């Protein structure tokens, strides 16, 4: 970038307003198209002033996610949090009761809502869902999950992909995550669930949780997970291993859009990249596939990885439109 050109940028307030506009549209998810992404990229590339303004607001906006830790205090300040919105509805209910004297009609409004909501992300997507109880779910790339619940239980069913759960423990309301035939019952915890085909992996980061099969079979029994535990459930059963802290950090690196590898076989590296990108990495030959790779990479920038593979690892790289073929 030419520094002279950069000094001729628009007024700071305009830049900030544009950055905020991009951010809000980008984070809304709905209606965000490939063309928007390209336009945003172009705008950010135009000037580092744009980039700085965008990062600055983005960080503030992400920090504001913590707000869901204080919904009650917030609604005390005259805000329309869930509890508060109930009042006009209750008033209406009372009016209905007075007119028809029907107790049943009113009772409906006092029952907790059992709505099921589906959240999803596309390839390369990343979304944070804050639940009313203060729990948070972060969806990784290409993920779908359904959230439902009533007064006694909160249910999340992971249909595909990977999600990081930060659960606000509530002894009177169980938090249950279902994935690939397994149930994970929260006992106050943070964990990652990844649902690949035929295989569910649960990595426990903090607290504890109970893992149990959905269908009570004679052979399987519940497993209590502790921090550092990684449970892998397949149709043959559940295996448990304990991972060092570094592995946990690496398992959560997608939250920062980084892929962290540590002597990871190239075949697995390719698989990881392919979860985030439409343009797929293909590794040919066993000697290349088993080659160990280390380092931090942006999940969505497979081209950079290809350059590293060629320049640093000395591999043969062929770029096609839909895929990048790597061999020795």
């Amino acid at each position, binding site marked *: 970038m030419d520094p002279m050109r950069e000094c001729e940028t628009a007024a700071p307030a305009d830049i900030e*307003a544009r950055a905020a506009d991009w951010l809000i549209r980008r984070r809304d998810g709905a209606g965000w198209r490939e063309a928007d992404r390209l336009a945003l990229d172009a705008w950010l590339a135009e000037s580092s002033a744009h980039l700085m303004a965008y*990062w*600055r607001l983005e960080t503030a*906006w992400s920090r504001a996610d*913590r707000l869901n*830790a*204080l919904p009650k205090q917030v609604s005390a300040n005259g805000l329309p949090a869930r509890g508060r919105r109930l009042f006009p509805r209750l008033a209406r209910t009372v009016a209905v009761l007075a007119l028809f004297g029907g107790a049943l009609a009113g009772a409906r409004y006092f029952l907790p809502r059992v709505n099921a909501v589906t959240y999803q992300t596309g390839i390369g997507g990343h979304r944070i869902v804050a639940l009313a109880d203060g729990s948070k779910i972060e969806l990784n790339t290409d993920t779908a999950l359904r959230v439902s619940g009533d007064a006694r239980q909160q249910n999340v069913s992971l249909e595909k992909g990977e999600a990081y759960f930060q659960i606000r423990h509530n002894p009177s309301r169980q938090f249950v995550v279902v994935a690939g035939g397994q149930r994970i019952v929260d006992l106050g915890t943070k964990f990652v669930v990844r649902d690949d085909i035929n295989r569910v992996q649960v990595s426990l980061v903090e607290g504890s949780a109970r893992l149990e099969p959905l269908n009570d079979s004679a052979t399987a029994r519940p497993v209590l997970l502790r921090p550092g535990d990684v449970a892998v459930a397949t149709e043959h059963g559940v295996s448990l291993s304990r991972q060092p802290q570094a592995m946990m950090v690496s398992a959560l690196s997608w939250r920062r859009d980084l892929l962290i590898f540590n002597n990871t076989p190239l075949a697995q590296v390719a698989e990881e990249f392919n979860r985030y990108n439409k343009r797929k990495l293909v590794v040919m030959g066993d000697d290349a596939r088993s080659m160990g790779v280390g380092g931090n990479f942006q999940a969505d920038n497979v081209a950079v990885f290809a350059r590293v593979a060629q320049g640093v690892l000395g591999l043969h790289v062929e770029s096609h439109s839909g895929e990048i073929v790597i061999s020795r």
Partner: protein
Amino acid sequence: MADRPDIDGDAALRTAGEGANAAELKLWFVDEVLPLEAMLLQFLRRSIAGAADVEDIRQDVYMRLYQAARRQIPKPTKPLLFKIARDLLVDRARRQQIVSIEAIESIEALNFAIDEPAPDRTVIAREELRRLQIALDRLPPRLRQAVIMRKIECLSTREIGMRLGIADKTVEKHLTEGVRALANILYRETTELRSNS
């Protein structure tokens, strides 16, 4: 890890610079530069009291700092940030042919400011929620309502619009103003927030 802001997946990284470095630059900007904004603003306001171009200079400082960081990320960041700020102020004073006494004074005073110990990380984390809440309370009611619906109730722009009975464009406007106001309150006014409570 929990004390750091989460960073969403964004196109920003792709355009940040060369390769894997880009992610590093972003982490550096978020973790090292943004926490200095309160101090930088304080310094700029003290140096050029009442000037309308404080924001321009702040943005200029970030831009130059970032360009330097693309070559090599400064460690530590603070001295370079204030060196850049100081140079910009000196340039500006030369250009305007006014050298205010305050400007010189605060540049001298800066040497102390730079050496102030950074607050403890746990204090920052505890402060964070309180600051956020104060920030939220200070937003104008309509903005606050929209921000809460987005952040606490996780509603989309459309859902917020339907609930409040306003157009999507208006919701977007509330949210963009909301995020800007939040950023200003979060990164600045450290001292004011403290003395208010």
